[in-house]
């Protein structure tokens, strides 16, 4: 049953949205948060487990030191204060994906607090999102509901896979975000993108949203336009792509507006996002009185940090993405628009590496924004995952500079390279794709073409140099595109005694 919704424009005319996000980041540590079991994705169910992952009687947790370092690094990258002493706590609730029936998390003493993230919308508008806290916790197992619609309601039975149970998570919680107005959905997307970029840049997470490495719960409430009063919020859970975050926030804004317009109250609850219908549906009611009976985890000692440790980690931090972007744009001399296109296409790192491998900034951009992006789009993958390396681009460009191939052939070579046929040089060799550079062969091909189109030849002689294009085309056809078009044109003009 669909909810009534208002159009986005109508909603924006009457209300100011207030957003808040809880983003869960799965860390890429070798082992789990409190356990020696491997932290790995995609294995057979219930193979990456130990007695600790299963919460068997008698087991005890121990803290993964690498996960703590990752949390500190993330805290620093978010500009947070790192707590000298932080504690783990038990969040008690019964659910079969949580083997102990409590989740070990952090409650009133998280490892990182009070930070901020600068984010940029696609048109370059800047926002600062304040971070309330980032804390460490463990992931739950994965339930698969069998029978019915594959959802818990109506299922005949459910299977549980504890491979994910205990995987280290960092939960990043924002303060309420006001003032985004009609940009709120875009801001939601940009925020998740920024977090994803930060954790990827730190190397602490694989950050693959399709695998659930980065998951977003989006809180939305509406205030009457111009009012400071916070409305009742809903929390839309596990919105697992950046596009979905944008759509879910937009949908909730429109739905809230319709409810409020009808003079009704927003129910404080969790909502589920459905990508197929692009709607949210009601989950379970949630209230501030939800009682998880938090108390300090007695099986773990406090996490104690010191200035020396924190400063060492700070020194190891990679350059923040925003600063890096500013530096790269200046180095490469791209216009704002060019650079934004590069960033939005997600090929900045690839271009950086291609330049480092020896290509010019313009050549690197030409390939990554051009043929590589086009092929990636056709194949519906990220340009970075296409299989074209910085070396591929450098080699292709080299072959063009040497006159061995032309642009058109180079594009064919690229396609064969990404299909795994070898390096560009190998592909050219194997497939005989080099341009025809034998002057004798070219010369006779030009003679043949001129002979077959005497009227065109006459026009050229008469000064209509642009008509040479037709002859060039004929020659290219005859040589199956492997001729150097510029040289062909020169030959035509030479033979007809015309100045180019």
């Amino acid at each position: 049953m669909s909810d009534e919704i208002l159009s986005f424009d109508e909603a924006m005319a009457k209300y100011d949205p207030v957003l808040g996000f809880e983003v869960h980041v799965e860390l890429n540590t070798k082992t789990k948060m409190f356990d020696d079991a491997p932290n790995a994705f995609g294995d057979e169910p219930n193979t990456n487990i130990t007695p600790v992952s299963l919460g068997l009687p008698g087991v005890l947790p121990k803290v993964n030191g690498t996960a703590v370092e990752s949390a500190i690094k993330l805290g620093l990258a978010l500009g947070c204060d790192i707590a000298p002493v932080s504690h783990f706590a038990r969040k008690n609730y019964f659910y079969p994906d949580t083997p102990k029936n409590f989740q070990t998390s952090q409650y009133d003493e998280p490892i990182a607090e009070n930070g901020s993230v600068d984010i940029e919308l696609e048109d370059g508008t800047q926002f600062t999102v304040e971070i309330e806290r980032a804390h460490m916790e463990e992931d739950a197992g994965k339930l698969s509901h069998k029978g019915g619609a594959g959802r818990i309601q109506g299922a005949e039975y459910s299977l549980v896979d504890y491979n994910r149970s205990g995987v280290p998570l960092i939960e990043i919680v924002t303060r309420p975000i006001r003032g985004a107005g009609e940009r709120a959905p875009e801001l939601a997307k940009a925020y998740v993108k920024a977090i994803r970029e930060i954790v990827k840049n730190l190397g602490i997470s694989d950050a693959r949203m399709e695998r659930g490495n980065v998951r977003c719960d989006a809180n939305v409430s509406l205030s009457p336009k111009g009012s400071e009063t916070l409305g009742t919020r809903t929390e839309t859970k596990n919105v697992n792509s950046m596009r979905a975050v944008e759509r879910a926030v937009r949908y909730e804004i429109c739905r809230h507006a319709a409810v409020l317009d009808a003079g009704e109250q927003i129910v404080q609850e969790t909502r589920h996002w459905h990508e197929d219908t692009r709607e949210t549906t009601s989950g379970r009611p949630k209230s501030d009185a939800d009682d998880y009976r938090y108390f300090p985890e007695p099986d773990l000692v406090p996490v104690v940090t010191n200035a020396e440790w924190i400063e060492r980690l700070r020194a190891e931090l990679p350059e923040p993405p925003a600063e890096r972007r500013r530096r790269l744009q200046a180095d490469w001399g791209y216009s704002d628009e060019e650079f934004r296109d590069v960033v939005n296409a997600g090929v900045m790192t690839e271009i950086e590496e291609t330049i480092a491998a020896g290509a010019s900034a313009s050549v690197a951009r030409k390939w990554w924004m051009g043929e590589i992006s086009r092929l990636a789009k056709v194949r519906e993958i990220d340009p970075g995952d296409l299989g074209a390396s910085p070396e591929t681009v450098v080699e292709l460009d080299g072959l063009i500079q040497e006159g061995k191939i032309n642009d058109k052939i180079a594009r064919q070579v690229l396609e064969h390279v990404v299909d795994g046929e070898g390096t560009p040089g190998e592909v050219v060799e194997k497939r005989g794709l080099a341009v025809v550079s034998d002057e004798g062969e070219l010369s006779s091909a030009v003679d043949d073409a001129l002979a077959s189109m005497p009227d065109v030849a006459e026009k050229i002689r008469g000064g209509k140099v642009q008509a040479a294009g037709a002859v060039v085309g004929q020659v290219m056809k005859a040589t199956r595109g492997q001729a150097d078009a510029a040289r062909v044109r020169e030959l035509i003009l030479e033979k007809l005694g015309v100045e180019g």
Partner: protein
Amino acid sequence: MTTNQNALITLSASEAAEGLRNGDFTSEQLTQAHLDRIETTEGTAVDAEDRSLGKTGLNAFLHVNAEQALDDARQVDADRAAGKQLPPLAGVPIAVKDLIVTTGQPTTAASRMLEGWMSPYDATVVQKIREARLPILGKTNLDEFAMGSSTEHSAFGCTRNPWDLDRIPGGSGGGSAAAVSAFQAPLALGTDTGGSIRQPASVTGSVGVKPTYGSVSRYGVIAMASSLDQVGPVTRTVRDAAALHEVIGGYDARDSTSINEPAGPYLAEAEKGATEGGLKGLKIGVVKELTGDGFQSGVSQRFQESLELLRAAGAEIVEVSTPHFDHALGAYYLIMASEVSSNLAKYDGVRFGLRKLPEEGPVTIERVMSATRAAGFGPEAKRRIILGTYALSAGYYDAYYGSAQKVRTLVQRDFTNAFEQVDVLVSPTSPTTAFKLGEKTDDPVSMYLNDIATIPTNLAGVPAISVPAGLAPENGLPVGVQFMAPVKEDARLYRVGAGLEAALQQQWGGGLLDQLPDTESLIAARTQGSAK
């Protein structure tokens, strides 16, 4: 009083180890003698269909591991015969409280919830006793999930006190204490959350030690209250307790609360304390709050006599006050129950143990969990889960759990202050001797009061030992004296405990358990009595 005097079963662990080294007997013979004793003193099932009714005899064991124990014993004998270097206690059998997980035999925590459950892993302390080559006789009875002071809360029937079969053996570790005091095992492992090693030791005339929190690994010990639980030795002599503590103690990376320091030496301290003048220079503080009113007269009498002996052995005795001990019991029952409510949440029928489907209505996960927990937990476990859930609830947390933690800090401060004045503290272990079975089962608070003297040490994490101090004149039942030492000063307990033990044994002309009535005769008399 003759059959208790079998040459092999009455040996202390140290004496037995000596005999094995000398080739006086084999580990197989020693282990078999204990298995035979178990056979003749356990009694038979009251009702073969209903394990909850227990046995006609001691019912100290929930599982006897005869074949594996004998195999292990034979292997020790073979290695000894081959001239291999063996650990000091190799070949001396041991009993393990059924709260500690073991491979190869069931672990139940005396709960229907885990009946028949086989652990896929060994607890760290079990690994250590296996490495020390101690054959494991079996798993001993306890109050369900270690919650109780009498073993009457075992789902598989109570254990009986070998001094009087109609009395409690203490709890929760009544099985380990009864097994050791009745010569079924020379050594046993217990766990102590609020007195579960020391109070049973006290009421059965055995020795029990709760080590410093973090001194012995808790990995593989089914958690009752994580911040209070500690594994420790149950033995017949202080020396044996020291030797066993050296085996099980030490750092374990799998337990985050484990202290990263080597265990001991304890045995040398026990030997030092037992020598002439071994207590010279030791300053002992009598805890004012743990004497007088509320303590049975015979308990107080034996306690005072012990103080005289300690003084005679060279110790200085002074009185110290620990004003916040009066609030320790209340704080303990809130903290313990809170942790219990969370630790016992995992027993839900989803992954292991009992699974019970609802008798009617839809079969949903919530209803299966609910039916399983309703059927699997006994009344005391439920009482504490409910109490703890309440204490942690929003709106009550500060008043209950929060206040209790403050009291805990004050109790710790009391100990710190006291140990600035004295080397060790002393009190009776339990306010009474063993009470009758059934006497307190309907009155939980009076049951809880039995732990009044043992609880403060758990709250503070400090170590304590209970040593037999004689029999109460009014009923001829054992009385225990408890020594407490500062954190990580467990060695002091062995010194002072061995000193008192030596002085008392000189007086008695042997161990207190030499006076234990013949167990087989008691069982026979009781069986005939109930048959009439």
